[in-house]
């Protein structure tokens, strides 16, 4: 990918308070609406989890659209959106060099210990 890479991840949940929004943001024409990836944190979930994608004219409207598309049935309490173009992903071509070496490193797994009964989440 030749996309310019930025490292501005970690957006917090974007609040939509009762105030009327009064600052217009620069929007793009409809044909240029970028693709966004949507992450929702469920009521019980620990992490934001990817749920799908959508098109929106800008970041704020993407949060709104995500609310309408992906949290209609009480699924979430927090939404993140990020432009798909801003995601840097590992390449399928690199699958073996990336992941295969982990397959035989049994010593990386804590399977040689007795786990005390009162230690959860191992």
């Amino acid at each position, binding site marked *: 990918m030749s996309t310019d890479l930025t490292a501005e991840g970690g957006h917090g949940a974007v609040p939509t308070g009762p105030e*009327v929004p009064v600052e217009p943001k620069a929007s793009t024409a409809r044909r240029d609406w970028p693709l966004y990836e949507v992450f929702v944190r469920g*009521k*019980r979930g620990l992490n934001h989890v990817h749920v799908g994608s959508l*098109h929106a004219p800008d970041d704020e409207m993407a949060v*709104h659209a995500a609310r309408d598309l992906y949290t209609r*049935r*009480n699924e979430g309490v927090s939404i993140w959106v990020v432009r798909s173009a801003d995601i840097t992903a590992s390449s399928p071509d690199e699958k073996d060099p990336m992941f295969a070496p982990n397959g035989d490193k049994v010593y990386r797994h804590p399977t040689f210990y007795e786990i005390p009964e009162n230690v959860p989440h191992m």
Partner: protein
Amino acid sequence: MGHEETVYDALDHAHGGEGQWAFGTGFDDPLAGVDTTVPEGIDPADLGAYCLMLGDDALVLCQRLTQWVTNAPELEEEVALANCGLDLLGQARLLLARAGSVGVLGRSRTLATDPVPDEDALAYFRDPDEFRSSWLVAAPNGDFGQTVVRLLAASAWRLALFARLRESRDPVLAAIAAKGVPELTYHRDHAARWVLRLGDGTAESHRRAQAGVDTVWPLLADLFTATDVEARLAATGVAVDPAQLRDEVRGVLTLVLERATLTVPAWPAEQPSRGRAGEPGPELTALLADLQGLARAHPDAVW
């Protein structure tokens, strides 16, 4: 994995793992535990008539918003408008059911067959001149710009009202208003975002948004003069005199339009509401033909 694979799994797990989360889960009944007896000194006929006004506004605007389904400029926006419509439908159901429960049913109860609940009888079996919705919500959608301007105006008015109705002496009205406030806050917010973007967008979007403002603005004339029913109920703390909403509504609309670089038209000459007086206008009549046709042709239909 130490945590749930997806939020949907988590949701399913949280509600007994029945695999039915898609049908809705974890919802609250907004009227749970609410005393439904009519407060002392309140005329049930007035209370029912007031519920019809507010319920009809919601029902008619819902129908207008759902007319965008399959026609909206983007799929995402189609769902957004439909969601707003469904919120309003929920409000309409509660309000029409309240009207029915206090005995305000008119001819609809004799036209509707027995198993049809009161709220459906009122929605489907009243004639246009029995509706009490404002002309603001009955007006056609126009283009998308006009639609979001109307949604902004209607939700700003209704939010200002519901915020006050949370203190109503009628516990049912208060509960319905409390449920509606966050919904209407979202509708107003959503519409305002679009008005800002269209008004301060391209030359064409500005032109259309301004045309929408110019079309919608005269419809505000009807919204701020109390009917006799509203005046009597406001005096007893059940309803709100709509004149009290004027400053807030006008302030919100002016703020959004100015920031959207749109011209704010002169405030229209206020007049008693034609819609509340049972003057439906041809647009509402056509809308109701659409809304009611199926139920009237097949009154026993279920789905």
